Structures are given as structure tokens and as C-alpha cells.
């Protein structure tokens, strides 16, 4: 299958700062990819390049199109939610549905209205009268009613309470996602979405530091809780990271045989958040 997004030596500089440093990646259709990185790592810059919102160096093809040249054609197949509250505040629910229906050839009005009927908002309400959570519901209803191939979500649930956040990803997974579609999502609430991701991309200082499927990650990485007497034996295996808890040490290993690790202590799968902390240590120093 051809990749939905394919980047080769993708770079972007702002003056002397390197935002993206020769990134190479391929994103296959039917995946949900988490793009994770500390603040300022280049996530948003990468998404902007994919969406044709920023210039870049190197090669980048999205759905076989060049985002710089074919932005118009591209946006028929690509949707994005950039952040909460980017819907214009003056517009009414009715107007925004009419407008998108008027300009987007792949928008289904019926589907959008059906999704909206499950929410509390009224057609005549303006966006500025809606709560943050409702704005995201509205935006999601619009995006879900568009039959697009690629959906880009940049911190879509920032500032929402847990109920809205859960509902957001639940709707996305149950009523939208299928093997024809691809979703790229960035978020700092990584623990909430790790169960829905199929792929993980860690980005740090403009470089991809981890590019793996979730299956590969659970094969590669293990965490062991080790008693002090075996700590030195564990350190000899070159752990990625160690932290102390209740007098024991938790070691994170990459690519070490789990059977061998089981001899050192209690073995379990690391969470993406733990992996993230281990990979990104020292970023802000």
C-alpha cells in the first residue's frame, strides 16, 4: 500500500533554530499515529508542513500530493482540528454547518446533523455562547461528517474535562475511524489515548527518536521492579532509565529478553508515558 504521508529529509529552520532536522517517515493508511514530543520539539511544525501551512525543505508527499502546491485538492481529503476554540466565535451552529456543506464536496449534512442532535447545542447558538467542550463537539461533528482520508488532530482536547475528552476519542474510534482512514494526533495527555494508537512517533529537537507500532513497542520495551541487591546486575544490562519507588528501583529496558529480566524482579509493560519520560530525559536542561 502507498503511504498516506511520506517524508524524506524534511527540514525546517526558523533563523538559526532547527525546528525539523532531516525527518524521514512513512505513515500507512488505516493507522492512528500518536506524534509525541516535549514542547518545542517540532510537532506543530511537522503538522503544519503536512497541512501545507508552512514552507519546508526536503520532500514531503501527502496522499500523493505536494502540500505546498496542491493545497486545495489536498484539503478535500484532509481534515484537521488544530486546537480548541479555533471555530470563529461569531458564527452560529446552523451557519457553520451550512457553510461547510456549501464549500466541501465530501461533507454529509445529514451525518453532521445526526451527530449534533446527540449534543445539547441549539442551531441558533453562536460559538461564543458555547462552552469549550461544546465547541469541540461541534468541530468534531463537522470533521466526522467529512469523508476524508487523513485527519490531523493537534492537541484537540486541550483544556477539556475528562468526560469530554473520553467522549471525543470514543466517538472518533466508534463512528469515524476505519481501515480507509488515517489519524495523526498530538497530545500531552498521552496516557489517555495510548490504547487507541496503532503507531507511535517520538520527536525531540526536530528529530524522530522513536518510530514504532504499538506491537513493536510492547515487544521491545520492558520494565522491571528490582530489589536493591539486584540493582547493579540490572544496570549492567544498560537500562534506558531508572527511577526509585518504595525502596525498589524500576528499570526500563529496550530490546532485552524478558525471560532474562524476569530473573531480576517483577516484570511489566511500560506505559507510553514512562517511555516518553525515559526517552526525553534531559530535554529542558
Amino acid at each position, binding site marked *: 500500500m502507498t503511504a498516506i504521508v511520506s517524508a524524506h529529509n524534511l527540514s525546517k529552520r526558523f533563523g538559526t533554530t532547527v525546528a525539523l532536522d532531516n525527518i524521514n517517515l512513512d505513515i500507512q493508511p488505516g493507522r492512528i499515529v500518536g506524534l509525541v514530543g516535549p514542547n518545542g520539539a517540532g510537532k506543530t511544525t511537522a503538522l503544519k508542513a503536512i497541512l501545507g501551512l*508552512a514552507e519546508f525543505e526536503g520532500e514531503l508527499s501527502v496522499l500523493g500530493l505536494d502540500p505546498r502546491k496542491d493545497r486545495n485538492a489536498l*484539503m478535500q481529503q484532509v481534515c484537521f482540528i488544530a486546537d480548541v476554540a479555533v471555530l470563529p466565535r461569531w458564527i452560529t451552529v446552523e451557519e457553520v454547518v451550512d457553510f*461547510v456543506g456549501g464549500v466541501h464536496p465530501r461533507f454529509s449534512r445529514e451525518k453532521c446533523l445526526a451527530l449534533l442532535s446527540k449534543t445539547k447545542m441549539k442551531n441558533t447558538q453562536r460559538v461564543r455562547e458555547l462552552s469549550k467542550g461544546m465547541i469541540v463537539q461541534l468541530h468534531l461533528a463537522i470533521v466526522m461528517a467529512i469523508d476524508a482520508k487523513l485527519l490531523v488532530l493537534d492537541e484537540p482536547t486541550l483544556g477539556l474535562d475528562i468526560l469530554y475528552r473520553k467522549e471525543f476519542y470514543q466517538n472518533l474510534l466508534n463512528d469515524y475511524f476505519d481501515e480507509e482512514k488515517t489519524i495523526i494526533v498530538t497530545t500531552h495527555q498521552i496516557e489517555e489515548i495510548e490504547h487507541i494508537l496503532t503507531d507511535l512517533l517520538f520527536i525531540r529537537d526536530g528529530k524522530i527518536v522513536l518510530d514504532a507500532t504499538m506491537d513493536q513497542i510492547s515487544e521491545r520495551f520492558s520494565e522491571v521492579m528490582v530489589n536493591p541487591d539486584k540493582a547493579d546486575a540490572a544496570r549492567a544490562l544498560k537500562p534506558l532509565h531508572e527511577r526509585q519507588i518504595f525502596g525498589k528501583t524500576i528499570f526500563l529496558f529496550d530490546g532485552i529478553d524478558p525471560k532474562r529480566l524476569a530473573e531480576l524482579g517483577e516484570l511489566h509493560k511500560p506505559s507510553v508515558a514512562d517511555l516518553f519520560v525515559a526517552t526525553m530525559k534531559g530535554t529542558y536542561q
Partner: protein
Amino acid sequence: MSAAIPNSVISNNVIRNNKFTWLVRREFWEYRGAFFWAPLITAMIMLAIILMMLIFAEVTAQRAGVNFNGFNISNITSHVAEGDIEQVHSALDLSLLGMCFPIGIVLFFVLFFYGLGSLYNDRADRSVLFWKSLPLSDVETVLAKLAAITLLAPVLAIVAMILLQIGFLLLLTLDGFVHGINAVTLLWSPTHLVTLWLRLIVRIPVNALWALPSVGWLFLCSSFVRSKPFLWATLVPILSGILVTWFSLMQTFSLTSLWYWKNIVGRALLSLVPGSWAWFDLSAESLARVKNPTQVADAFLSLEVIGHQLMSLQLWIGVAVGVAMIVASVYFRRQRIEAIA
């Protein structure tokens, strides 16, 4: 077989044809208050003022008529009706146009601030990211805003002007009836009114062409600046004017500083004043030709003036400069996603 056009192609064409309409409609939704209500409310205020003046005049006249010298409204009206109808119509034109002046001023402010915010406000509140998530090109977006500022808003203002004039004539007619005078034939000459209104409508495209340097300048500032578009848009031309005057730079081109203020600063900031082109090259000579004040309206509205304007080089140089700035604003619309504000 040849008739079998895939549904998607049909719907794509429908979308393409309607896209522009939707974009203009979006401008109307966003600026409904400024485009629709502002001129209409101004018209209603003018009508209220006229009504109050009429009542005041009635009261004063009645008091004078009863208590002093028997002079009353019906005397004046019957006297004028015997006079030259043409002259009455000219005078009527002048008052019909004059009362629309405040709507023209309101329209100027509406257009000026619309232009200033058109490519800036959505960057400031980041909703530009939503618009850019839809399959709309920057050219289409800017052209829709151009259509809103040069056609949609002026057309709505002219509708308000016509409603005000009709309201005024209704009040005069009613006032006539109160005094037992039938002023219908005098006031409601259809050919006369339609001519007047057509002349107003004909001026929309001329106003639009004339306003392009200002539209271009406002769009350019609106699409370019990262904050404070008003200060940029006003201070840059004004400060440049001050510098030019200070150092007498225009003498290099055998021109005066006044020329710079009028043709550069003035055109950048004030071309959106409706009909400003007619005042722009009003010379002493053309004013001298106006012997009777009632002829001002005729002079102001004549097709000759419009024709003269359309043939003038300064109009088309302005158009070229305006178009260049609009093209630049399309470029910046593409580049500048976020304002810092």
C-alpha cells in the same frame, strides 16, 4: 453513454459554482451588523430627525400662520407647484442626496474597518486555521472579501438610501395631505426617481474602481501585520507624508508635497468615501460652472462626470496599484497564519 456524467463530477461543479456565493455569504454573516444594520439604522435615525423637523416646522408655521400674518404651508406649496417643475426636482434631488450623506459616511467607516480586519481578525483569534482546514484557496477567499467591500456593502447602503428617500417622500406626501394638497404627481415622478436611483447604482462600480488603492492598502496591512493593523494602516502613510513634506522630497519629481498628500496618503486612506472621486478633481473651474446651488446635485450625479472619471489616467493607475496590493495580500494570506496579538 455520453450523457452519463458521474455524480461526483456534477456535485463538484455545483460546489465550485456555489463556493464563491458561500464565501460572500460568510462575509455577510460575520458583518451583518455593519453591512446591513448600520446603514439601515442610520436611515431610520435620519427619518426620525426629518419627522421631528417637519413637526417642528408645522408647529412653528401654524403658530405663525394663526397668530401673525396668515402665511401658511399651502401658500408655499401651491406657489412652487405653479413654478418650474424642473427646478423643484433639482432641489428635491439635492435634499434627497443630502439626507443620504450620513449613510455614505457610515458606509465609509464600515468599509474601512472591514478592510482592516478582513485578513487580520481571523488570524488574531486563530479561526484562520478552521477556514484553512476547508478546501478553499486564498485567492477565492480574498476575492470574496473584495466582492464584499466593493459590491455587497455598497449595494446594501444604497438600498438603505433608497428606503430613506422613499420614507422622506412619504412623509412629505402625508404632510401635503394634512394641508389638503395633493403632492403625489410633484413628488412621485417615477421617471425622475428611477433616474436618480439608477445614477446612484451606476456609481457603485466607479466607486469600487476608485477605492481599489485603499482596499488594496487595507487588505495588505490586514494580511501582513502581526498586530495593530489600524496603527500600521494609518501611521505609515501619514508619517511618510510628514517625511516627504519635511524633506521636500517631491521636488525631485517636480511635484509638490501637497500632491503626495492628495494622491498617495489621501488615496490610500480616503478612497473608500463613496463618490470621493467626484470631489477629488473638483476644480475652481468646474465649481464656477455651477451657478445655481440646485445644479450641484445634477453636476454630482451626471453621467458625464462618471465618463470623465472612467477615462482618466489617475483612476486606472490607482486600479493597477490596488490590484498589485491585493495580489500581495493573497501572498501574505498564504504565508502568515498567525498574528501575535
